[in-house]
Every structure is written in structure tokens, then in C-alpha cells.
């Protein structure tokens, strides 16, 4: 049906459909923008750019939802029904291309159609795995209330692999566009900008306007529903995160010398061990009155790593070290490996033990990437 020679554009039916309707073109270029932002922040930016990465992800979510709906309710060539994905058709098409012949398609040729499906599927996979990671590891976003850390952890590699696959698919997509444009002289890029190609019979202005209006309404509805549902879900309390009220004794006695450590950063056993040997406290005597020591030990043990489901409680808190130092856990070292020693002795930081110098949310125990704020960020 949609397969025909590029040279016979006069062969149109009544009520000529738009080649690339305006909603589809706007979708395409907004997706380019959002995906570029997501890939750049995901691969290149320091962790505190995560907020931008997440916003780009949310934008991709809205765009993706719109595209799926537009695949059902859009104009002819936007509809998934017009897609031809049969193995036979695809192989036949590729053979023709290999022979140097150039069958043209008004909609998408089979290779291009596969590209669209692969790109949309990868984006969907990245979106879902991203939301799971955001919910389970960062304890943020619409899934924070339902996803636990260990579930999210299984999606970490998937998210990364899918991102590399997307990068590859984008490269193939660009190569395909270049091939069509330069070798086969099909102005596919122009079609995605103007919605037209030479010789294509422009649909009646009414037709164009109808599709634009319908697309706009559908996009607005999608945005409204997703933002509404997303905000409502995001407002639910995150799984395994209990707000801790620090007793005055703990704050007063412990923060004279060091940061206010969240109790979820050590196991109950480790806390008891530390509190039993305050006369040998990391190279100093930090002895307390028995009453204060017992009160603080009880607080720490009752709110220890085992009672939390945060990333920090799993990757640092539950990882006991012989030295009883959080900074000796493998995860701590890995995450801080690119930070020079001088950064820790910087007057604004002081030592590796001073979490709060950079982690603005350290006292919540969350240690979200978006809350990392090294002093040099302010000096730039």
C-alpha cells in the first residue's frame, strides 16, 4: 500500500495524507533534544547533573507516551499500522538496496521502520529501568514508594547496556539518513523538517490543521495525565526510608568533632563496637559519661543500616570493615577514586570523614547524586 516509486507522486488518493504531520515532526525534534541531554548527562556529566538527566528522562517519557498514542491516532504515516516489519519484506528491500536500486517509500522503508521500532523500544527500556533506578537507589521519583534497592540494583547494568545500544542505534539512524540523503537522494531529513518532499502533493490546509490540532490536544492530555500521576506517585513516602529524629545527646556529643553521621551508615554490631571503645576512637579518646554512651548506643543500634533500604545503607552501611571506617568500604573508595587527596584536605572539607562538606543531604542518609555539592563547584 505504502510502497511505491518516488517518481510518481501524482499517484495520490483523495484526501492526500500529510507526509510527516506537524505533531510527528515536533515529537521527533523534541526527542532529539531530550535524548541528547540524557545521553550527555548520563555518560559525561558529574553525578550532580543527575537532576538534568532525570528531567530529560521524564521528557522522554511524555514524548514516548505521546508517540505510542500517535501511532494509533495520528495521520496515516505516523500510524504503526502503516509500518511494514515483515522479515520477507525487509530482506527483499535490503537486497534491492544492495543492488544499487532505490525503491522509495512515502512512509518509512523497512530498514527505517525497524530503526524507529528499535529506537522507541530502547527508549522505553531506558525509561523504565531509569525510573526503577531512580526509585530504588536514589529514593526519588514515581517508583520510589514501590521499588527496593536490591531490585533496582539488577537494572543498573541493563540501563547502561541499553544506553550504549541507544548510542549505537542513533549512530545507525544518522548513517541511514546520510545514506538516504547523499547516496540515494531521498530528502528524508527535509521531510522531517518541513513535512514535505519535492513533488509531494501538499494536503489541503484543513487536513493539516486538523492533524495539528488533534496532535496538540493529545500531547497536552498526555503531559497533563503523566505529570499529574507522576507527581502524585512521587509524593508517596519512599520505600525503606524512615525520617530519623536525632536525639540531642547524639547531636551534642558527636558533632563536636565530626559530621552528624546517619545511623544507617553502620550495622548495629559495628555501632556497638565503636561505642564500646570510645577511649580508642579513631586515634583519639572520645570517652563519654555512661548515661550518654548508653543513650547514643541505643539510638544508633535501633536505626542502623539493617533498618534502611537506601543505597548508602546497602553499599556502605551493611559493609563492615575491619578498620570500622566507612571510607574503607569498596564502594566508598570506588565512588571517590577520582577525587584527589588535596580535595579532602581543602579547608572547606577537612577530611574524608566530613561527608556533609559535599553531600548536602548526608544527614538524611540518602546521599542522592543530585545533592553532591563539592566546594569547588561554588568557586567556579
Amino acid at each position, binding site marked *: 500500500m505504502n510502497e511505491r516509486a518516488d517518481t510518481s507522486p501524482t499517484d495520490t488518493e483523495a484526501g492526500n495524507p500529510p507526509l510527516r504531520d506537524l505533531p510527528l515532526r515536533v515529537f521527533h525534534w523534541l526527542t532529539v533534544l531530550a535524548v541528547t541531554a540524557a545521553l550527555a548527562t548520563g555518560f559525561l556529566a558529574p553525578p550532580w547533573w543527575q537532576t538534568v538527566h532525570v528531567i530529560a528522562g521524564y521528557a522522554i517519557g511524555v514524548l514516548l507516551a505521546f508517540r505510542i498514542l500517535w501511532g494509533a491516532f495520528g495521520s496515516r504515516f505516523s500510524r504503526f499500522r502503516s509500518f511494514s516489519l515483515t522479515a520477507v519484506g525487509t530482506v527483499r528491500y535490503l537486497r534491492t538496496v544492495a543492488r544499487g536500486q532505490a525503491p522509495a517509500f512515502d512512509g518509512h522503508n523497512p530498514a527505517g521502520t525497524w530503526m524507529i521500532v528499535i529506537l522507541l523500544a530502547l527508549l522505553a527500556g531506558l525509561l523504565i529501568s531509569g525510573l526503577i533506578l531512580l526509585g530504588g537507589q536514589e529514593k526519588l521519583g514515581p517508583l520510589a514508594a514501590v521499588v527496593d534497592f536490591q531490585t533496582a540494583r539488577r537494572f543498573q547494568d541493563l540501563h547502561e547496556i541499553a544506553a550504549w545500544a541507544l548510542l549505537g542505534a542513533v549512530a545507525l539512524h544518522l548513517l541511514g539518513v546520510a545514506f538516504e540523503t547523499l547516496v540515494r537522494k531521498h530528502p528524508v531529513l527535509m521531510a522531517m523538517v518541513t513535512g514535505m518532499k519535492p513533488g509531494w502533493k501538499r494536503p489541503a490546509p484543513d487536513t493539516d490543521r486538523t492533524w495539528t490540532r488533534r496532535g496538540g490536544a493529545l500531547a497536552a492530555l498526555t503531559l497533563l495525565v503523566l505529570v499529574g500521576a507522576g507527581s502524585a506517585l512521587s509524593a508517596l513516602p519512599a520505600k525503606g526510608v524512615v525520617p530519623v529524629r536525632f536525639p540531642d545527646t547524639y547531636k551534642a556529643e558527636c*558533632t*563536636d*568533632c*565530626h*559530621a552528624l553521621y546517619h545511623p544507617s551508615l553502620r550495622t548495629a554490631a559495628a555501632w556497638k563496637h565503636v561505642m564500646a571503645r570510645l*577511649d580508642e576512637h*579513631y*586515634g*583519639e*579518646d*572520645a*570517652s563519654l559519661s555512661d548515661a550518654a554512651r548508653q543513650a547514643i548506643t541505643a539510638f544508633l543500634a535501633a536505626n542502623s543500616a539493617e533498618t534502611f533500604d537506601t543505597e548508602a545503607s546497602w553499599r556502605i552501611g551493611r559493609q563492615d570493615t575491619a578498620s570500622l571506617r566507612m571510607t574503607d568500604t569498596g564502594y566508598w573508595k570506588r565512588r571517590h577514586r577520582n577525587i584527589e587527596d588535596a580535595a579532602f584536605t581543602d579547608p572547606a*572539607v*577537612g*577530611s574524608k*570523614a*566530613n561527608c556533609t*562538606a559535599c553531600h548536602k543531604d548526608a544527614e538524611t542518609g540518602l546521599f542522592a547524586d543530585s545533592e553532591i555539592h563539592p566546594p569547588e563547584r561554588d568557586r567556579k
Partner: protein
Amino acid sequence: MKRRHALSRKTTSLLLALACATLALPSYGADPRQQIITGYEAAAKAAVPDFNGFSADRGKAFFLASPGTGKPETPSCTTCHTADPRTSGKTRAGKPIAPMAVSKQSDRYLEAAKVEKWFRRNCRSVLGRECTAAEKGDFLTFMVTQ
């Protein structure tokens, strides 16, 4: 009957107020910091019969010394407090410490329990033992003049 009751209550209040004032009188106007030093003076006299007063110079030497008998991480008071009591120090964990000099930090050495707590901890860290009353008094006398 009623009136006598009211009178007696007034008298009671008056007596109570008087009692409170009497109890408060000795400390009224007295410098709590000086009281702490006086306390160490009494203890020093009891420990050393020929004790003849605290010395700011001895306190200074004590503050700047590196006895090498404590924990290796804290060889001297100055490890954390710096050699100048009038500047801010820093804990090994990176937290700022207010200046030790009374002229720079007027709320220093006003709470006996707090003073004792930090002498106990820091003397054990730096000297490997508790400080004597004479050492504590010298130290405070030095810091008061700073």
C-alpha cells in the same frame, strides 16, 4: 480563718524567696570561670603541699609541648588547636574548633563538667594520662590571659 491562711502563705513565700536569695548570694557576681580555676587550685594544694599558684607561662609551655606519650595521631594540643590559641583550630575529622583564647571566645571554660570532659579526653589523647590539677590550672590561667 481565711485571712490567717492567706497571711501564712505570704510569709512562706517571703521566707522561700529569702532562702533562695541567700543560697544564690555566694555565686552572685562570681565568675564561673574563676570558680573552676579556684577549684583546681584547691585540688593542686591538696596534691602538692608546696604549690604556690598557677602560672600562665607554664600553661603556655604545656600547651605548646609535644610530650609524645599519647596517641600517635595527636602528638600535641597544637595538632588540632594550632599553636596560636587566638585562631580557630580543626578536628582531625575536619570540623572547626573555636579559638581557645578567652578573648576570642568569651563562652570558654564556664561549665565545669564540660571543662573536665575535654581535659579528660584530650589529656589522655595527647599525654596518655589524665592531667593533674596543677596542669589544668596552668592551662586555664594561660588561656584566660590570651
